[in-house]
């Protein structure tokens, strides 16, 4: 009941935020950046003009070459050329698309050049709201980024929910050490939407993500995979075995729920319970063990019971992930 009250109380806050957002959007000037949509140094009046609706490049639009872009966009071009993609396009283009340089992504610049910085609607600018996300993403994917890591992009969760490539990647300059991320680290990129995961990194029980030793993309491929939750390996457990190969077995005595999924017991993104457990021991084990004798007693921890203090059930059942000892059926050795 309390939780419901909390949610109900927070809904008006959301409504207020929407209202404020709407109000701000009415009184604020439109986005300005170092390079306005038309050209550097465009007047405030022209910047304030409504953006023309994107049409895409006309059928006969001509490619004019990247050199033409330098006339007005020298600074951003220089930045781009320092990126890996920029280097490939400028010094070792392997395909026709790569040879087109700027126009490979932004489309043929003929109309834009012919109108001295106009016809912006014919270009793909990758700006928010400028073109449909599908059109932006198609520019990145088709012909260039649809193999390897991107093979399963079509139909993936991110693709089907309309997440734009540029939501996570910044192509025009290097912000991250690798993968042209929009922010310095994958955690910062992912937590733009997955805010709960960012909060979970602060838990007392966590993997070394916040210390920078592993990253979201070590387990997940955000471009889609053949496994649920965009996991890189063929199953949850195979993902975990990449670092915890000792848990792989096969063991003589197997603990069936362990084989099916590590996430039956563990919350890999961070937990308030030791060893990333979803529920504190002994209650976690007692969710499934209603045999006779000691597993079924509720216990009073203040009595110092060996079944709950220290590491609880694991005080004895150390080999809970499986045992290869001939007498290890109870996972005690």
């Amino acid at each position, binding site marked *: 009941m309390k939780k419901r009250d909390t949610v109900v109380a927070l809904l008006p806050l959301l409504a207020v935020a929407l209202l404020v957002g709407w109000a701000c959007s009415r009184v604020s000037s439109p986005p300005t950046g170092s390079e306005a949509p038309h050209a550097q140094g465009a007047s405030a009046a022209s910047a304030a003009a409504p953006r023309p609706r994107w049409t895409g490049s006309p059928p006969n639009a001509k490619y004019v070459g990247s050199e033409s872009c330098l006339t007005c966009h020298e600074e951003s071009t220089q930045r781009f050329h320092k990126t890996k993609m920029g280097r490939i396009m400028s010094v070792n283009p392997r395909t026709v698309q790569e040879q087109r340089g700027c126009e490979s992504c932004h489309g043929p610049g003929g109309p834009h050049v012919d109108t001295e910085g106009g016809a912006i609607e014919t270009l793909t600018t990758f700006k928010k709201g400028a073109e449909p996300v599908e059109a932006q993403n198609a520019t990145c994917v088709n012909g260039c980024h649809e193999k390897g890591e991107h*093979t399963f992009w079509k*139909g993936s969760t991110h693709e089907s929910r309309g997440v734009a490539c540029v939501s996570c990647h910044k192509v025009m300059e290097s912000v991250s050490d690798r993968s042209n991320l929009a922010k310095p680290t994958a955690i910062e990129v992912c937590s733009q939407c997955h805010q*709960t995961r960012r909060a979970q990194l602060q838990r007392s029980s966590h993997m070394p993500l916040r210390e920078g030793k592993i990253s979201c993309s070590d387990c997940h491929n955000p471009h889609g995979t053949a496994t649920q939750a965009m996991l890189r390996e063929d199953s949850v457990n195979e993902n975990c075995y990449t670092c915890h190969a000792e*848990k792989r077995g096969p063991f003589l005595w197997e603990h069936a729920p362990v084989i099916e999924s590590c996430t039956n017991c563990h919350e890999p993104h961070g937990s*308030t319970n030791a060893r990333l457990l979803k529920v504190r021991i002994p209650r976690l084990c007692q*969710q499934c063990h209603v045999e006779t004798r000691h597993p079924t007693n509720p216990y009073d921890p203040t009595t110092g019971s060996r079944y709950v*203090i220290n590491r609880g059930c694991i005080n004895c059942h150390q080999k809970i992930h499986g045992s290869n000892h001939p*007498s290890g059926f109870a996972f005690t050795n």
Partner: protein
Amino acid sequence: MGALLGIKRFGRTLLLAFALLPAAVASGYAEQPSPQEAIPSWVNWLNAGLPFDFELTGLDVEGGYRDIDGRRSSAKFQEYRVLEESPFLDHLRLSLETKDKRRYIDFTAIDSFKQDQSYLFRVGQYGDYDLEIFWDQVPHLLSTTGRTLFSTTHEDSTSFLTLPAGVASTVQGATPAARASVLGGFLANAAPVDLSFLTSKAGFRFKYALSESLGMGVRYTYTEKDGTIPFGAGFSSPGGNIVELPAPLFHRTHQVEVKTEYARPGWNVGLGYAASIFDQGIKNIVFDNPLSATNTPTASARGRTTMDPSNHAHNVFLSGGVSLPLRTRITGKFSYGWRFQDQTFVSHTINPALAANPQLALPRRDLDGDIRTALVTVNATSRPLAALPLTLNGGYRFYDFDNRSSEIEFPAHTVRDTSLTVDTRVNAPYSYTKHNAHLDASYPLLNDLHFKLGYEWERWDRDSKVREVPTSDEHFLKTSVDYSPLDWLLLRTAYRRSWRDISAYNTQAHESHVVQDIEGDEFSLNLQGQSRLLRKFDEADRTRDRVEILASITPFEALNFTTTYSLLRDDFDHSSLGLQESWGWSLGGDVTYSPFSWLSLFVNYMREEFKYDQLSRSRPVISNVSTATTPAAGCAFTNPTAAVSNVVCDFSDFNWRSLNRDKVDTYGVGADVSLIPKRLNFRLTYTFSDADTIINSFNPVTPTSGTVAQQTSAKAVRYPLSNTNLHTLIAALRYNLTSNWSLKGEYRFEQFREKDWSTDAIGQSGLTNLPPTTDTFLGARFLQNYDAHIGAFTLRYQF
């Protein structure tokens, strides 16, 4: 000692002076123009002499001195990192390119010369090949309070943990009533033990574009874990004594992956092989029994336990995608895997008084473990009609886990080296198959309103000899709406409801397979095994609701507000015992505001709650009762035909319920301020995370059946509150002295607070606020308060 203090004081004074320096210098330079990027002249000189046409194109190196004050002995402070009062090299990045910009060399070093160091060397030719060589270390400090009497030696792949001479014999010689205190006396002199391990990874990755269409890649990683971990062991059956060991950990893993891919416009296919070889360095641990110096059929002077066995896994895979007419793309993956494990079994016991028993002869030398996995997945996405923006997405996934390991019958076993039990037990190689299929349709109802509706099906086929539910089907209905009516507003909502139906629930499946003969018949098994009322949560009938909402509001480029809400609710409505219901929800938001080019601010908050409602029943057993007597109401003999039998009691008023709740609040606030553009920057961040774990257990009705002792055991109580909270404040001031040189002063405050009923008072003999027990613990606290004031001054050079 005095000299040391003097040096520390001097170091702190120096640190403070350097920290204040940027501010002082800032005032002097405030009017100066901002530094410009430039290639230093020494680089031009150096580049003239570099071989192979390479030139230095980037250098970024930062190092300095760190000072730390406060209470920081807690393992949590340095769990995965190394922070010391010492000079440090934060990072070094070096970039070289050939003059024609075709080839590159990069080198990155982070936290050099410390145990959390990492190095990466890259060399390649843009668009053609890329070679990475890396080395990375991750420390994992588990506890700083562990103490032990054991000393460790190694012989071949066995570690021997031995007690000082005379401990076991003295404890054994004491009266049973005095043993705990005698053992406690020895344990009071236990020596500190380092409970930590270090993970070191090294390897390389190589990618090569053989042609425009054909590429290949190789990856190799060597991982080594080395250290000491707490390890639960002991002697005799439950209720026997616990011996927590400082177990040595040493194992290595080799991982190799080779793949190649051929891609043409519209289609691509990849083929690969991956192997993982796990090599256990310590196969067995032999440890002394603190309570017994002699070997008898009911006591053992030493115990033996096994570490995880060496194993290896192999996988071949084929994946690809093809674009078809009607805007259709089909992707798929097939993979087949093998997992093997054939480590030689140890004998049942190290106790010579039992080991010679012929019934303990091992039927096989090893498991001959063999698991085959197969994955087939096919996905198709199509927008079949040009005029209608309807997108269909369907797919099927098949995952088979086929455990072909040997099934071995053991006629007898030992209970932790202290007794022999004659009943046949058979291991249960477990196999399962999982099928998933889905079909989604998405359609833009309006230009900015995308609606998606889908159905998904998941089936588990489990080995009915091992698991309770042979077949379960889960049906999902899911819908999502993405609405972006305006440039400044994005709303994403998703709702999914699923129903899992099970074919049957055979409570005794596992026991009846593993335990071939327990007191002679199935009757006893039914009584002593799992309660027939239990439904395990991972298999049971379930209704699941999942809600996800995201709203992102960007009224102007400088301001963004994003809020998310998620809910996951499971209702196990057919489970009489076991998990009844679980809830997890989170609600939070993020505001970033950059009103000026020199100022950006952010605030975030997240509330999470996880609730698990479980129902269980205390089920006492009275051992060795004459069957001539009449058991109490609700109790039954497990073997009524024998003269003496166990009695199992099943009283409904012994039910207990537990509402387990984790409640977490996480706050963050920060600012980035450019005090003097491109010259003086200030960054402030503060995060606070506060987590409560509440276990509220109670009996729905007061236990009145059975004996007073049984009622006491069945009595459920609310557990003490567990709490952890972490404050982290970081204030950093960076001053750019020139275009290349900058100074940084950073102050970091961390405060960690915890309350944990399970380990706060843990000592070597149990809880320190209670009389000593005959158990031997390490007294290792994994959570401990700490306060740390960390000051650092760094000097950075970059171009």
